[in-house]
Structure formats: structure tokens, C-alpha cells
């Protein structure tokens, strides 16, 4: 079997370089040190599913936030003054007076009486085209659209009502946000739901990544100990694992982001087809897409950190 008893001279040239305690990466083939399951293993797929779900939940939360924000800013300072008076002449007089009084106030940005024609057009679908014209016209209130400088508060509403009460007895003052209150409450609940979902998914993903890193460590424990005993330092050994798990996480996170985005775009198209102004306010802005793109990045960071902490704590138990 050809065993010769001369030391190969080449080993001599190697020895000089093999003495440092530095921590070079263990060659480009180092990832071969760990048994790779790669795409056949569960790790990338678990991360893909978790990423997709997190992306969808995050998108839902963000678009609900946008929806609420848009609606709120449109109507936050909005008031409606109705002049509920059956006699047309008196109604017109009080409406004119109310507009004049309101325009004098410093805390009011804009006052606009909704023209009767516009009002009738709005009501026509429900009350018929005969509304408001002729003797048998159904009496409709005069509508005044008021935009406050700031937001409408209970105090500002009460104060306004009082100041109109004497000279404009037929005036009814309502905050526009008032009738949207239940909608905001529902949106807010949905937002909380989305936040809780994102948190739960993040926690589950973290646990899944942690378990995967632990099991990869367990099945490679012997290899870790061998590399450790041959002089591999903690940073090298953790590095091997981090690179291997980072690969899995990048693949899984990429697939997950893709799946999540496809779902969001399809859903977005369906909502856009509803043509509702309110739903249109729930679109995603550039910053929101950036947040979504951050989800897989965070998954990778989380996977790598878990692998690192797990491997290092196992190594600390060895001498």
C-alpha cells in the first residue's frame, strides 16, 4: 500500500503559515463543513411563509393607517351647519346671516354655503328630481360647509353652537367626524389587530428560526467539536453557521417577500376596482413599500443573530 516514510517537503512550507491564532474564514469550501439541507430542508420554507404572512399583515396595517389618516385629515376640521327651517325666505335669511357671522370668526378657515342646486342634485337619487322646486317641494335644509383652522373639539363645537343660537335659531352644528366615529373605531381596531398579528408572526418566525438553528447545531455538534479541537476559534465556527443560515434566510425571505407582494398587488387591484374614495385613501406610499422590503431583511438579521447566539453559547460550554 505504498506507504513511504519521508515527510513531504511541502508540508514544511505550510507549517509556517499555520501558526497564527487569527480567525480567517475557513476557505470558500467552508460551508461544506455543515451538512446542508438547503431547499430540501424546512428552514427556507418556514422563513418564506413567515415572511409572506408578515408582509401581508404589515401591508394591511399600513394601508389601514393611511386610510384613517387621509379620512381624518380631510374631515378633522370640518363642520356642517344646517339651517332647518321650512319657510324658504326665512331659511335663506338665516343662512346668509350664519355665513356672515361665521366669516367674521378668526378660528374659521373657510365657509361655503352649498348651493341649493348642488344640494338638490345630491338628494335627487333619493327624493326625485322634483325636490326643492315648486310649491309642493319637499323642504330641504340649507347646508353650510365650515372648515376650522384647527381640529374640531367638543368645546369649540359647543362654543360655536352657542354663538349662533341667538341670531340663527334654526342652525344645527355637527362635526363631520361625528358620523364617521364608528368607522374610525372599526379602522382603529383593525389596525391594532394588524399590529398584534405582525408581532405574533414576528415572534413565531423568531421561534422557528431559533429552533431551526438549534437543530442545525445539534446535528452538527460533532463537526463543531472537531473544528474546535483542531484550533478553530468561536468566530470562525459561528461564521460558518451564520453564512449557512443566512443563505437559507435570504432564499426564504426573498420567496416570502415575492409571495406577499403578489398577494398585496392582487388585493390592491380588487379594492381599486371598488372605486370608493375612502378605500382609495388606503393605498401604499413609497415609504410603506420600503417597510415591506425591510421584513425579509429583518428575517435574515434575526436568523443570523439567532444562529450566532446559539452557536456561541454552545461553544462557551466547551473549553
Amino acid at each position, binding site marked *: *500500500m*505504498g*506507504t*513511504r*516514510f*519521508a*515527510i*513531504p517537503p*511541502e*508540508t*514544511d*512550507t*505550510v*507549517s509556517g*503559515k*499555520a*501558526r*497564527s*491564532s*487569527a480567525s*480567517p*474564514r*475557513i*476557505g*470558500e*469550501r*467552508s460551508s*461544506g*463543513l455543515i*451538512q446542508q439541507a438547503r431547499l430540501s430542508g424546512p428552514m427556507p420554507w418556514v422563513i418564506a411563509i413567515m415572511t409572506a404572512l408578515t408582509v401581508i399583515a404589515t401591508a394591511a396595517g399600513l394601508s389601514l393607517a393611511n386610510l384613517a389618516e387621509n379620512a381624518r385629515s380631510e374631515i378633522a376640521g370640518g363642520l356642517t351647519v344646517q339651517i332647518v327651517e321650512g319657510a324658504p325666505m326665512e331659511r335663506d335669511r338665516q343662512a346668509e346671516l350664519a355665513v356672515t357671522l361665521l366669516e367674521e370668526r378668526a378660528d374659521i378657515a373657510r365657509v361655503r354655503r352649498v348651493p341649493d342646486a348642488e344640494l338638490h342634485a345630491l338628494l335627487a337619487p333619493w327624493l326625485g328630481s322634483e325636490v326643492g322646486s315648486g310649491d309642493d317641494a319637499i323642504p330641504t335644509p340649507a347646508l353650510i360647509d365650515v372648515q376650522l383652522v384647527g381640529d374640531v373639539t367638543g368645546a369649540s363645537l359647543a362654543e360655536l353652537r352657542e354663538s349662533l343660537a341667538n341670531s340663527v335659531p334654526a342652525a344645527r352644528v355637527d362635526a363631520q367626524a361625528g358620523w364617521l366615529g364608528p368607522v374610525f373605531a372599526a379602522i382603529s381596531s383593525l389596525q391594532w389587530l394588524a399590529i398584534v398579528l405582525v408581532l405574533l408572526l414576528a415572534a413565531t418566525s423568531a421561534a422557528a428560526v431559533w429552533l431551526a438553528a438549534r437543530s442545525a447545531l445539534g446535528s452538527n455538534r*460533532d*463537526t463543531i*467539536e*472537531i*473544528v*474546535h*479541537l*483542531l*484550533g*478553530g*476559534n*468561536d468566530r*470562525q465556527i459561528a461564521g460558518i453557521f451564520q453564512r449557512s443560515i443566512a443563505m437559507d434566510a435570504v432564499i426564504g425571505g426573498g420567496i416570502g417577500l415575492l409571495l406577499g407582494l403578489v398577494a398585496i398587488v392582487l388585493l390592491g387591484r380588487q379594492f381599486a376596482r371598488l372605486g370608493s374614495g375612502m378605500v382609495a385613501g388606503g393605498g401604499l406610499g413609497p415609504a410603506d413599500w420600503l417597510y415591506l422590503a425591510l421584513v425579509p431583511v429583518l428575517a435574515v438579521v434575526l436568523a443570523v443573530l439567532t444562529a450566532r447566539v446559539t452557536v456561541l453559547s454552545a461553544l462557551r460550554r*466547551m*473549553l
Partner: protein
Amino acid sequence: MMSGSDGAIVQFDNVGLRYGADAEVLSDVSFTLFPGSFYFLTGASGAGKTSLLRLLYLAQRPTRGVVRMFGTDTITVPRGHLPGFRRRIGVVFQDFRLVPHLSVSDNVALPLRISGVAEADIRKPVADMLAWVGLDQRAGAFPATLSGGEQQRVAIARAVIARPEVLVADEPTGNVDPDMALKLLRLFEALNRLGTTVVVATHDVHLLQKVPDSLIMRLDRGRLSDPTGALRYPPRRDPAVL
């Protein structure tokens, strides 16, 4: 480099080792190893040979006593310094410890990769080393497809590829026929002549006579005796020879 007993490469002082709450498996072990010498560690099965070697290749801390390697107290040295010491020690494990999913040549290359040797400088030494242990035809094979003796030779090639200053071999001839055992011993001797301090644990007393200049340490139930006077009258070799 600071030094204990002048020129010593390994120094054990009153070393004791116990596993958990059991009785000590090593007690009051004191000895000094000098560079370039060839030592046998012998003793019955269960006497504590593997335990002593594990202390020597820094896999284990003693329960008490002092272990100095290369002139440094390894008990008090920061943990981060130990990998540097381990790279100066070649180990043939009793159970080989080959990485099962790496080929024979990747297993042998492992110490060089850990030390950061460039890939271009790895191929030839590995090929030469495999030829040296007669396994050049099996370079691409995986450990599971090798016989016990072949695995042992891979383990030996891996232990010596980086030309360690100390070679520790735990029953390295346990799985091979007497002819191969002798060949492997000659291999250790060749390495020893190049300056490597060799420590071979064996329970095979016939092996001891095969290396003329060797020194013998005997373990008896965890205590060290000294049949060749290796410990009382250690050889003083000029370190400059290295």
C-alpha cells in the same frame, strides 16, 4: 515566550481530574515533556490515558493542578488564546473524529483551512500527505466507505498535515494489523526526527520496544509511574535543534 522548567514544551503539576462527582480518574499527575522527544503513555484500559491526553490537547480543564503548554499556564490564559495553542498540537483521536460529510482530502485539509492557508497552497500538501499514508487513491472517498485502518490513517494525516509542534495520538494502532501498526510508528518517528514532540498512548506493550529512543510513562489507576526514568531524568535536548 515565557518558560516553566527550562525548555519544557509541556508541564503538568499535581494535576487531578474528576468527572462530575465521581472519584478522581487522574491524581497527582506531574511530568515534563521536552521538545523533540518520543513518549509512550501506557497503562491498562480505563487507567486514564485518554483523560490525560484530553488535558494535553486542551479539550478539558483539570479539576486541580497546573497544565503549562509552550511555557504558558493554560488554566489562567484567556479562553480566546486556546485556539492558537490547539493549532500547534496535532491530535489523532481514539475514535478518529473524521467529519463524515467531508471527503478524505477535505478532512485532511481541515487544519490548513482553519489556519487560513490559501486554497492554492492546500492541494499539494494534502495530496502528498495522502500519498504518504497510502491513501492517494481514496482522496475523494467519504469516511463511511473506508475501513477502520484507512480511517485511522486519514486521522493521522489530518493530525500531522500542519506540522504540529506536539503530536498526540490516542491508541493510533488500535485498528490496524501489526504490519500497518509498525508502518504508522515509523511515520511518527519520521515526524519526531523533524522536531515534533510525539506522545502515543497505547495499551499494547509490544509497541513500546519498537521505538528505540522512546520514553515511557505508565498510568496505573490515574497515577503516573516512571519505568524508563523519563520523568525523573528527562532528556535535556537543546531547543536550538528545533
